[in-house]
């Protein structure tokens, strides 16, 4: 117990770092993911295939390897990034791959006649996408998006392996110093749980709400 009290301030700080490692990739990944989703649903075959390839590679590669490629791999090529920056870049790519696929599905889940209706009203493709399809797709994609954010939160823990002192890494350090691994890792797990569970509940709630309206 004494261990927890003594290290609580440093755990608080590292929880803040974890939160940053979550928020920055969530935002960057959302922007990139939107681009990927639009590419995947574009009329041009080249754009569609590029988007498909990107998703295939990101979803088929372990997130940890993505971190290694950005951090250690790029360093070999002469691009040295700080561990936290590497983690942010790799996690953003990771988020883009998954959000892009979720949102592609959502765009395609909007019934076809909606596109035709927009066209018949004189909307261009971009206009239709932004004004008509997107609002519906956002609603459809919401539960899966929130669900993915839970995964993203958990994946931030991998940043510990490339040396970012976030929640998991400081847990490792404290467990080593205090010789109380069970207590410390239990506490770390509890902190992650406190951050993830509300999102899981929200995701499930949204899913139920959608079934109710349909």
């Amino acid at each position: 117990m004494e261990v927890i009290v003594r290290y609580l301030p440093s755990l608080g700080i590292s929880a803040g770092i974890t939160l940053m490692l979550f928020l920055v990739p969530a935002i960057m990944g959302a922007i990139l993911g939107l681009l990927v989703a639009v590419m995947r649903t574009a009329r041009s075959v080249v754009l569609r295939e590029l988007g498909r390839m990107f998703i295939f590679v990101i979803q088929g590669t372990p997130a940890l390897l993505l971190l290694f490629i950005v951090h250690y791999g790029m360093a070999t090529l002469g691009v040295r990034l700080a561990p936290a920056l590497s983690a942010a870049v790799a996690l953003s790519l990771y988020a883009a791959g998954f959000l892009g696929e979720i949102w592609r599905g959502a765009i395609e889940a909007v019934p076809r006649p909606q596109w035709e209706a927009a066209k018949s009203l004189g909307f261009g493709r971009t206009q239709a996408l932004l004004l008509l399809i997107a609002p519906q797709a956002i609603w459809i994609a919401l539960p899966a998006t929130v669900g993915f954010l839970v995964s993203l939160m958990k994946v931030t823990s991998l940043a510990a392996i490339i040396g970012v002192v976030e929640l998991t890494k400081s847990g490792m350090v404290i467990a080593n110093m205090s010789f109380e691994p069970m207590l410390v890792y239990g506490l770390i797990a509890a902190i992650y749980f406190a951050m993830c569970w509300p999102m899981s509940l929200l995701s499930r709630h949204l899913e139920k709400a959608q079934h109710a309206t349909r």
Partner: protein
Amino acid sequence: MPNFSLQFWHVWPHLDALFQGALLTIALTAQASAFGLVASLVGAYALMSGFKPAATLARAYVEVIRNTPFLVQLLFIYFSLPTIGIQVTANQAALMTMIMNFTGYTIEILRGGIQSIPATQLDSARSIGFSKVQTFIFVVAPQAVRNTYPSLTSQFSLLLLGSSVVSAISAEDLTAAANYIQSLNFRSFEVYLVTAGFYLALTALCRITFAAIWRMTFHRWE
């Protein structure tokens, strides 16, 4: 100064190490999915049983596993077990954590699969003299797996990719092999890129295997 000339020839002499690592990754994934599947059938049964404490326990287990990182679960198992007198090697800890983690996700999936089995089937199983356990093993479990096969397949792929994290506790999987090789030749970019190719191939192999299993078993029922 960035130098983007790739030198893949530094990787080829170490391909055997990568294959060795890949073998352990495959072995871990196969074992974890086999044991995990059995454990999660039991878990799903507990979740749906009328026995309240068992259902609550299963529910809590699923929530805890799903809302904490795999790496933290791994560290907890690997470093906590020795403090209560159980010595485990890194590979054993890796396998245990993979089973536990996988189970947390598949319990929920299988529960859905079990619920989609018509109640009349349970009645008919009972009427021809099957006990509760027999009904579960011969009637419920196979159908639950069949009904949820696509979701299970993607969980297996996720398990395979997630297993790369076990390299963090020095289990000797594919990613650990990559780490070792790049420490020898300092061409981390090329090494990790080739390793990523290995994982892509392994997930493809996983899909093919599961499609083949489907054709050999459940497909014949149709």
